[in-house]
């Protein structure tokens, strides 16, 4: 037994490695959104003609206010719109029968184009 037996050590290190590989991605990630009050929201919309509402419709169709676009063009367009604005606020609205994934993708794109306040508004008001 002149040389040390390192095999058990390697076994344990490998298992520890696997533990950490499994645990690391468990840190929760998420997209931060705001919930504007219905009343303040209507005030906003009356006073601020610059309000941007992104509406997600069935079949991957997206509208920025009344302008038709899609998921690929949404990011560059939003960057263009918000280039000169200090307050980077946008509202997101979705049709009821749209899959949540589509809306989340749109929110993700908005986040990616530098908008830091995203308000979720519902179809009710």
């Amino acid at each position, binding site marked *: 037994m002149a040389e040390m037996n390192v095999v058990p050590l390697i076994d344990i290190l490998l298992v520890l490695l696997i*533990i950490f590989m499994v645990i690391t991605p468990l840190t929760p*990630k*998420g997209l931060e959104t705001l919930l504007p009050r219905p009343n303040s929201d209507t005030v906003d919309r009356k006073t601020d003609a610059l309000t941007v509402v992104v509406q997600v419709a069935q079949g991957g169709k997206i509208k920025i206010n009344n302008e038709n676009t899609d998921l690929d063009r949404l990011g560059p367009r939003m960057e263009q719109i918000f280039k000169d604005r200090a307050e980077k606020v946008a509202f997101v609205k979705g049709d009821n029968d749209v899959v949540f994934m589509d809306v989340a993708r749109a929110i993700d794109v908005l986040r990616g184009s530098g908008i830091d306040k995203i308000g979720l508004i519902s179809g009710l008001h």
Partner: protein
Amino acid sequence: MAYKPTVGAQMSSPNVIPMADIMLVLLIIFMVVTPMLTKGVSVDMVTANTPRDMQDADKDDAVIVAVTRDGKIYLGNTNIQKEDITGQVKDRLANRLDKTVYVRSDARAKYGDVVAVVDEIRSAGVDQLGLLTERRQNRETPPPPPNGQPST
């Protein structure tokens, strides 16, 4: 391998110490992982490119509302009705400074269901909402569209 090839009677009993070591470590893994597995209902969350870390959502007292694919609503682990969300969320947030609620929604849930839940949460006086997502894996193919809803 460091084991010397030995002959006959010298290797009569196998060396079980490495096995015991590994078993102990596996035991520890399961002790650590088991409470995580039971936390919340399992939903297929959306993958996102630009999510923020939400450390607070991992806390024991985080208010997490889950919406499953078929529109069932869970607060933590318990299935609740839509009408009860406002009251329950209010109770849970009563003494908190950080009034953030997290929504874990299935990617294939109807947005109408999600928005109905969001409205109830809004009524509880919450103005910060975290939509929990998964980190994007390095794959470009989107998950398959839900039944009967071609997404193109």
